[in-house]
């Protein structure tokens, strides 16, 4: 039936690039098709007319364009074959992979015939299919209301996107709200953090496209092509934000005092409280764990805003994409007891020092010890929990602690020039402009000691910091009356939870992993989910904001552009499928999930690699586009042109490998005529039966190349090894199959490998 299809072949001279080496007349003689034509420049607009006319005149069902590489002009010719379906056209690459790499005219001509024949056989197996077009809803969930989440939300909202900003605590603002001062390396000055944060907060609150949900967490998530269905849980606030005017009478009346976590527990607050002066929503909240239910607040509230009863509320939310901005937490100092944090009152963290020196902090900005005196010497210890591979430590550098220490040291020195500040460091990491701030800090008479302290103990009224001054090679005991620990940044609990709920990949350290650090630094491994801020890795405010706006830009790209997807993806036969879940585990792209008791394949992330096919005992999965048959026909099309004594090697490459192979031609290197390259959408789609068929039907060797950065690389490597083992069992020589790494820029290496493999096969043939 498919053999009756009318195929037209269009040969391109490419202005001599092809015709000077390949004898196109001979090609025409050798091929038996409905129509065959030759043109000087097929890609020109003239070419479009020629192709279209021939399709009408000869009633062609399929088209083969023998010209340059599909990488250059496949899209062009898919357009030129209209009204034929674009997938009914195939390109035979007789330029980059023939005329540009071979010089022997006769051999090159035969190779061109072979490649065109392979395309003819392949295109006969093609069916008309339409690309899948996905449009995601233009609604976004931003999870986490810190500086990163706020900026991402604001940027999207200003572009017209509806944003829901989800924050688990009673106020947005995050760590930046409590940081006190921030510094500018350019101005060499410390500035009020809240004063910088507040305008953003206000803008966000007044933006009609943003809905802020505080006391709210994501508890469930489900993904369908371009749409996420989230279930949120909003805990009761017990105070009606519409009615509350934040007058504070309730807190005055409240009889319960508990440590104020916003002040790092350095001061007390009531059980009904406002997290901080500029918190949003501008309303009080009850900490029900500590509330005694005395009702004093209810009586005190003239606005009748307080209700002591309330239940968590579940809210469904449908969005097109998600930005994860769930942030970090600080290292638990119980893990490094030798520094005495839990034993001694005046051994504190940099975060606590930030509160102490903050004018809205427990001492109204005065640097005071627990006994109310100003410290005479503050020793700062760097890298606490960072750059530490011992149990509970972190191997990474937390990136901001050096500059945070410098900032806090300067703040102390400005106000208390008589207080000696000594920073014990291993390396001072102040890249770029920060180096100027480091110099400024030295000018402020902050002292530095290179050494990593071993312990802090109390002797009399003072602490002793035991360390080595490594530049002197001397063990020293430094007296101090305040010790400040620069604690590591680690993923927040929220970050760990959301990674689990959304099934997004994390690093070995538990941060959200970006899809690729260079080319996709804000995407996660799940399509439509982006990351920014310290949920991704330790970073400062500036970097968090930049990444937040980058994430917003990527969301816009995704939301507005829509996505056209090649239709060659997996499909489930629900009658056969028993929902065993094997495919879910096997899919490296996390495309499969169970929805409504059925396996659902997300067309946006499926690559059609076919890994799921192998594991499916029910044979319930197919990949659209007849790919198995196409590969088989292509092989057949090549091998059927084999001449007596001719060596034939089949090379299977995906897009990356194929581009590398094109580069060999573009750079006019050469490789033997025996090399016949077959392009596949995923190397994993080359099945053992293809290889076996090739070897049994005249192929002298099979070369499979894969880019090591491909998620399927290890899988393919193992598979090829298994095929080799099986080939050996059947008495064939496994040396006839080879697996190789390919890289686009390393085309010369690929040419060398082709040459070597050809030589090796020649040797085997002689034996």
């Amino acid at each position, binding site marked *: 039936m498919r053999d009756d299809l009318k195929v037209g072949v269009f040969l391109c001279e490419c202005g001599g690039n092809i015709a000077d080496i390949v004898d196109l007349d001979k090609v025409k003689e050798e091929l038996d098709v409905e129509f065959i034509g030759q043109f000087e420049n097929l890609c020109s607009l003239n070419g479009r007319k020629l192709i279209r006319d021939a399709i009408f005149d000869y009633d062609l069902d399929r088209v083969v364009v023998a010209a340059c590489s599909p990488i250059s002009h496949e899209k062009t010719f898919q357009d030129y074959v209209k009204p034929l379906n674009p997938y009914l056209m195939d390109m035979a690459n007789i330029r980059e992979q023939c005329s540009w790499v071979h010089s022997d005219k006769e051999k090159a001509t035969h190779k061109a015939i072979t490649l065109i024949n392979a395309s003819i056989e392949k295109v006969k197996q093609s069916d008309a299919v339409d690309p899948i077009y996905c449009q995601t809803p233009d609604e976004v969930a931003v999870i986490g209301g810190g500086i990163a989440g706020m900026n991402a939300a604001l940027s999207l909202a200003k572009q017209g996107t509806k944003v829901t900003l989800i924050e688990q605590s009673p106020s947005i603002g995050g760590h930046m709200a409590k940081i006190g001062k921030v510094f500018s390396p350019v101005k060499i000055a410390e500035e009020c953090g809240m004063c910088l944060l507040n305008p953003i907060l206000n803008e966000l609150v007044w933006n009609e496209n943003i809905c802020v949900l505080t006391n709210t967490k994501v508890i469930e998530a489900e993904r369908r092509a371009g749409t996420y269905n989230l279930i949120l849980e909003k805990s009761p606030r017990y105070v009606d934000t519409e009615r509350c005017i934040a007058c504070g009478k309730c807190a005055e009346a409240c009889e319960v005092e508990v440590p104020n976590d916003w002040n790092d527990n350095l001061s007390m607050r009531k059980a009904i409280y406002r997290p901080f002066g500029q918190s949003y929503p501008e309303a009080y909240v009850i900490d029900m764990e500590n509330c005694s239910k005395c009702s004093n607040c209810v009586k005190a509230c003239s606005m009748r805003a307080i209700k002591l009863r309330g239940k968590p509320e579940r809210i469904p939310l449908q969005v097109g994409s998600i930005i994860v901005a769930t942030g970090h937490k600080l290292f638990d100092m119980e893990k490094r007891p030798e520094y005495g944090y839990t034993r001694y009152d005046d051994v504190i963290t940099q975060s606590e020092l930030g509160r102490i020196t903050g004018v809205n902090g427990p001492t109204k900005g005065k640097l005071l010890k627990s006994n109310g005196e100003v410290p005479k010497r503050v020793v700062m210890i760097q890298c606490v929990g960072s750059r530490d*591979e*011992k149990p509970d430590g972190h191997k990474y550098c937390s990136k901001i602690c050096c500059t945070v220490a410098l900032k806090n040291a300067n703040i102390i020195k400005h106000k208390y020039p008589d207080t000696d500040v000594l920073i014990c460091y291993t390396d001072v990491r102040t890249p770029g402009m920060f180096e100027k701030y480091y110099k400024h800090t030295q000018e402020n008479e902050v002292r530095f000691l290179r050494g990593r302290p071993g312990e802090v103990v109390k002797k009399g009224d003072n602490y002793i910091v035991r360390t080595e001054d*490594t530049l002197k090679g001397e063990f020293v005991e430094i007296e101090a009356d305040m010790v400040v620990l620069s604690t590591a940044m680690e993923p927040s609990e929220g970050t760990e939870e959301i990674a689990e709920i959304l099934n997004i990949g994390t690093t070995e350290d538990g941060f959200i992993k970006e899809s690729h650090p260079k080319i996709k630094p804000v995407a996660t491994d799940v399509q439509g989910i982006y990351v920014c801020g310290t949920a991704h890795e330790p970073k400062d405010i500036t970097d968090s904001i930049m990444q937040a706006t980058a994430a917003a830009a990527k969301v816009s790209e995704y939301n507005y552009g829509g996505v056209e997807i090649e239709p060659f993806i997996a499909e489930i036969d629900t009658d056969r499928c028993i929902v065993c879940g094997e495919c879910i585990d096997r899919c490296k792209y996390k495309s499969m999930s169970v929805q409504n008791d059925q396996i659902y394949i997300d067309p946006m992330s499926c690559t059609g690699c076919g890994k799921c096919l192998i594991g499916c005992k029910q044979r319930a999965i197919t990949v659209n586009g007849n790919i198995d048959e196409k590969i088989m026909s292509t092989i057949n099309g090549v091998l059927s042109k084999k001449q007596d004594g001719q060596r034939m090697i089949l090379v299977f490459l995906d897009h990356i490998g194929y581009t590398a192979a094109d580069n060999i031609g573009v750079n006019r290197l050469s490789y033997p005529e025996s090399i016949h390259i077959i392009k596949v959408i995923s190397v994993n789609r080359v099945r053992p039966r293809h290889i076996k068929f090739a070897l049994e039907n005249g192929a002298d060797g099979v070369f499979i190349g894969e880019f090591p950065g491909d998620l399927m690389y290890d899988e393919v490597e193992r598979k090829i090894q298994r095929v080799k083992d099986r080939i050996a069992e059947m008495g064939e020589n496994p040396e006839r199959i080879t697996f190789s790494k390919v890289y686009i820029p390393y085309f010369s290496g690929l040419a060398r490998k082709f040459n070597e493999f050809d030589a090796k096969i020649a040797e085997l043939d002689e034996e």
Partner: protein
Amino acid sequence: MTNQQKITDSPIDFAEKIINDVKNSKEDGVLKCVQCGMCTSTCPAARHSDYNPREIIERVLEGDISIIEDDNIWNCFYCYTCHSVCPVGNSVCEVNQILKQIAIENNVGYDKLYEYLGFADSYFTAAIGAIPERFFQDIDRDVPGWWEFRQNLEEIRKELDLNPPLMPSEEVIDEVSKILTITGFKQKIEKIRATEEAVK
């Protein structure tokens, strides 16, 4: 003074030799040292002598083989504090033990071992490690009543319902002696003893 590094020098070889020693449990730890000094900050020997664990690694990484002749390496307490805190996963304590074995291979430090050969001898006679008798006099001087206690040991053990201090069977002693002969231990001990006694 200028320290010249010739193009043919390969300082890292010394660290490689240590890494490849069977005793090393820290893989490439020594190469990852950033000289932070946390080892020295917690080292009892650094606190009270010229021993400096950070400097040991510095010299190893410089390829300074003369370190095996430095008396300071013999001041390590083997308390493993450095090993337990090192942020990059190095162990100066292990490196130090390996350095001493390299010293001994190179006929250095025999005098340091000579006094302790009693620990070896007792394995061949009783299959246990006993404090060398040569120290008994010092102990008796420093610890009032110790000698008397040791004289009464059997009686005290009997009162505790324990066997008399353990002289294992001939079979056991033979087997242990054989093990320590085939590993080359016996030969090494005899060489150290002969060398030291010739000097004296």
